[in-house]
Structures are given as C-alpha cells and as structure tokens.
C-alpha cells in the first residue's frame, strides 16, 4: 500500500499553492454500510471491508483439535472456516456454522536444525513473525498486510513480492486436515500426497486445516527503500530491479505517469526510519486527486508533479516488521496474477483503460512478482506470476471500476486471487489450472455432500 507521508504530501501541496488542501485535513472515509446492525438484532458476521455479510446459525470456536473433530462428527450441518475475515470475496459467508480457530494459535514446536516450525493455523500473521523470531526463525516472505490468520492466508495462496520467493502456501511441507467427517489426515509429499497438494491452498473447501509445518529460515533484517519514479523508466528497467533486489514491488498511480518503487533487501542495519509509514495518507491523496482533477487542463499535471516531488524514504528492522504495514483505511480489492513476462503490458492496458474511460479512481495499483510453485490451486502453479491489484475505497462503489478492468486480466490469462473480488465461474477457471480436475476429485472425496460449499464456492466449482 502507498507509503506517502501525509506531512510531505501536505508540504508539496502547500508549496504549489493549493493551500485549500490544508483546510481539508486528512479527508474522511465514510461507511458505505447499508445494513447496519443495531443492538438487539442477531449478530452478523462481516468481512474486513464490510462487503460480505451473513448471519450464521452457529459460531464454532473449538478449544482443541479433538473438540473440532467431535463438532464435525456431531452433525451434517453446513460449515465454513472463517479465518480473520480479511478476504474480500464470498469465501466465508454461510447461514450454517462458521468455524473459528482463534484458540488454536501459536507455535507448537520447532526443528532448529531444519529451521522449520509446526504452527496452529489460527495464528494471526502479525503475531507469527515475533513468535518465530523469538525462536531464531522467520518466514522468507510475508504479505504486506498481516491481520490474517495463517490458515486463511494459506487457503488463498496469499503472497508477498519477490521473484525468487513463493507464496505462503509454497512454504508448507506438512499439514493436518480435519475432514468434514471429523477424521484427522496427516499429509505431506509422501503421506496423503494428493490431499497435501490440494490442501496447501484449499479455499477452505476440503475441511479445516488445523496445523502446518512451515519451512522457515534464520531470522533476518530488512531495509526497505521507497522512491517515486517515472513509470515508463521503471518499466524499462523492471527486469533489473526484479533480479537485483530480494523483494521488489511498485505502485502505479492512475492518471499519472509516476510510480512508487519499493526495493527491500537484507541488512545488518539497526532499526530506523526516514519518512512516515502513514496508513491514512491515502485519504489525503484522494483529496488531492479530487482537487487537481477539477482543474481543467493542468490538474493531472499538477497531480503528477505532486507525486514526483515526494522524497525517498527508508525503513529497516526485523523482516516481519518491514514487510507488513498497518492498514487503517479500508478498501475493496481485485487482484489477478498474469504470467510474469506479460505483467508490464497488462499494467499498461489497465492504466490505458482507466484513462480512456476517464474513471475517477486514484487508489494506487500494486504490482508484485511471485515465484512459481507446485500447489495445485495456487495462482502461481507452474507459472511465475506478476500480480496486479486494483483497489477502491471502502466507501466508494467498486463495481464499475472492477467490471471495466477485469476483462483485461482475462486477455492475459490472469488467475484471480481467491480471497479477492472477481467474477469468474468454473467454466472460466478450470482452463487456468492444470490440476483443477484433480482438486475437484479430492474435494468430492473428502466432502461428498458439499457441506463446505457455500454460494461463492458453488459458482467457482460449478456445483
């Protein structure tokens, strides 16, 4: 997400004479919630952005793996694993039971020699980093948001950025799966191998993954350097940036010729920061965009100049602290992963469509590299990926914007992020995954009555 400093952005705006901006403060994010709960009503479940809602018949929060298995054996009810609710798509919604593994949290054991750790999947990512660091270990990579549970992140093949770094799912070397019938399957590359390959990114459709073994590395420190650059210059040098940095990602700004390039590498430096990591600066960017857009002829040039005037910044610290960022401005998101080599062309098409339609959107577009893997329903299965994420503020309608852009991703054989918004169904998804049929076979064998299939999964799986 954008790392603009509110202070620096204000300074640039004031220097340019847009003093009225200062009077706007930080801007506001208003709720677009239309079905607000009031005390006395049944308590709904809602996702992080507020786009998904249901009133489950039961909330199940087992205190132990054995209690979970007993609950699953106890009835033929519909259920969905819920994670932290950070997914934007309808993965969780159910009028049956929602299963929460909050009580199954933390590191179970470690193998210092192998640098691996067995971890409960109810563990929130923001707590996993420090817990592993205390044991001298770290995940090689993390997503830039860390509110998710480990189980939810794995179910959706959640990822960070780095051409040589795979998704979180690719770091799982063994797992335990509580099936809908309450059995506990121990799985790895040699035991229940097909279930293992399917369950590392399962969409929560095979049962409840209770614990995983993570292939980690020694704890390490990172320095993140961010700078604003001219987009086409960056794209011309993209292969170099990708190959010479441990992590490289960038944000492209709709209606501007500027990008924010972020290179992150290992360091021995002490923890330090220059420039704020201000999660609410994005609101000020929106205000700035609206003001400059209203100026005919020169507005977008001013906007671009404002962005280009932003100073570079650095942050360093423990890997988990540098890779993740606070996200306090809520949004909805669509992300597709296209073949790595097609990334720049696809991005240009997205930006071109925004300009051609004059879409009033300013949320920066996030672009990341991810290494290919062998996880059946991973977006990176047998294909190195370039992930393009478009966002809309939570208090604005995402549908027209996402509907305009989504067909571009299809032209590039894009695979949608399972936890993010998309409109594909089984007929469109199946050709994108060589092991699609195998996954469905494993799913039907574990859940023949479709207890785990909600409306969203019914569309995805064609059931």
């Amino acid at each position, binding site marked *: 997400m954008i790392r603009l400093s509110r202070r620096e952005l204000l300074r640039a705006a004031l220097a340019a004479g847009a003093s009225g901006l200062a009077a706007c403060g930080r801007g506001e994010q208003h709720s677009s919630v239309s079905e607000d709960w009031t005390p006395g009503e049944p308590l709904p479940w809602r996702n992080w952005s507020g786009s998904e809602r249901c009133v489950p018949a039961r909330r199940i929060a087992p205190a132990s793996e054995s209690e979970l298995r007993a609950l699953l054996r106890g009835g033929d009810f519909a259920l969905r694993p819920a994670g932290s609710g950070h997914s934007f798509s309808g993965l969780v919604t159910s009028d049956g039971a929602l299963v929460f593994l909050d009580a199954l949290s933390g590191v179970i054991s470690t193998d210092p020699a192998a640098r691996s750790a067995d971890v409960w999947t109810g563990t929130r990512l923001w707590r996993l980093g420090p817990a592993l660091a205390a044991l001298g270990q770290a995940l090689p990579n993390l997503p830039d948001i860390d*509110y998710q549970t480990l189980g939810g992140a794995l179910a959706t093949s959640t990822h960070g950025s780095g051409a040589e770094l795979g998704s979180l799912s690719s770091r799982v070397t063994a797992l335990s799966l509580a099936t809908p019938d309450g059995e506990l399957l121990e799985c790895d590359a040699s035991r229940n191998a097909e279930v293992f390959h399917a369950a590392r990114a399962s969409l929560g459709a095979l049962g409840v993954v209770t614990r995983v073994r993570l292939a980690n590395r020694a704890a390490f420190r990172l320095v993140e350097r961010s700078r604003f650059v001219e987009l086409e210059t960056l794209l011309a040098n993209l292969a170099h940036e990708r190959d010479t940095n441990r992590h490289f990602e960038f944000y492209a700004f709709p209606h501007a010729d500027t990008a924010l390039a972020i290179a992150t590498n290992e360091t021995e430096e002490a923890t330090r920061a220059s420039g704020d990591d201000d*999660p609410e600066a994005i609101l000020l960017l929106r205000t700035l965009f609206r003001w400059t857009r209203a100026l005919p002829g020169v507005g977008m040039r001013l906007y671009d100049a404002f962005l280009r005037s932003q100073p570079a910044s650095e942050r360093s610290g423990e890997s988990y602290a540098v890779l993740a960022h606070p996200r*306090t401005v809520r949004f909805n998101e669509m992300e597709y992963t296209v073949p790595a080599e097609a990334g720049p062309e696809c991005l240009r098409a997205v930006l071109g469509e925004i300009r051609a339609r004059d879409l009033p959107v300013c949320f920066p577009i996030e672009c990341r590299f991810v290494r290919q893997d062998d996880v059946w329903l991973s977006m990176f299965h047998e294909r190195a990926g370039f992930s393009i994420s478009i966002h809309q503020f939570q208090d604005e309608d995402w549908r027209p914007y996402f509907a305009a852009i989504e067909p571009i991703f299809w032209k590039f054989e894009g695979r949608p992020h399972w936890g993010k918004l998309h409109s594909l169904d089984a007929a469109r998804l199946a050709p994108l995954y060589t092991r699609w049929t195998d996954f469905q076979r494993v799913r039907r064998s574990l859940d023949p009555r479709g207890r785990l299939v909600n409306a969203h999964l019914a569309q995805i799986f064609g059931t």
Partner: protein
Amino acid sequence: MPRILWKSARATAQLTCALVCLAAACGRGDDLKPATPTQLAPALASTYQSVCAACHARAGTGAPFAGNDADWSQRRAQGADALLEHTVNGYRGMPPLGGCGRCSEADLRALVAYLAGVAEGAR
C-alpha cells in the same frame, strides 16, 4: 491479565474528575464515567491479545490506544451502545466486529468496556 490493564487503571484514576464533568456536560449520566478496569475472562484476554491489540496496542495504526485515556474520553461520551455499534458495523479504519468474527455481542461489549474504560453493562 495484560500489563496494559494496570497502566490503564492509573491513567483512568488520574482523569476521573475531568471525565465526570464531561459526562455531566453531555447529559449522559454516571454510567459513562471511567469504570474500574474491566476484568477480561481468560478467553477474552486471549482475543484481546490476538485481535484487538493488532491495532489498539500497535503504534502507527491511528487507532485509540488501549489504556490511553485521552484517546477514549470523547469516544466514551458517545455511550457504550454507540461504541458497540461502531464495533459491529465497522467504523472508519476499524473492521466490522473489531476483527473478531467469533465474538458474541456479550464478548464485544466486554472488550469495548475493557478498551474504552466504560462500566460493563453500561449503555
């Protein structure tokens, strides 16, 4: 019990007089003054640590800080029900249910009371 609770207790005691005045000025009654810190049941203390603390005890998120009475005094004046509605529906940066999907209404009321320093059971 999380250590931050005791910090909250001291801060709350220091600001009690000012907040009583604020509550009176708003005409909302005595149940809105800072409470004796709510004791969280062990399961909820764990929820606080794994969910609420992600923002309310982490610098840089902009969320009102657990135990910082200055962050809570004006919010408390809105009443416990308003804080609960914000929690369930989501409010600005705070996600719906405060990020605790498994929580019941009673759980959320207890967590709000703990974080904001309102008397448990207040409306």
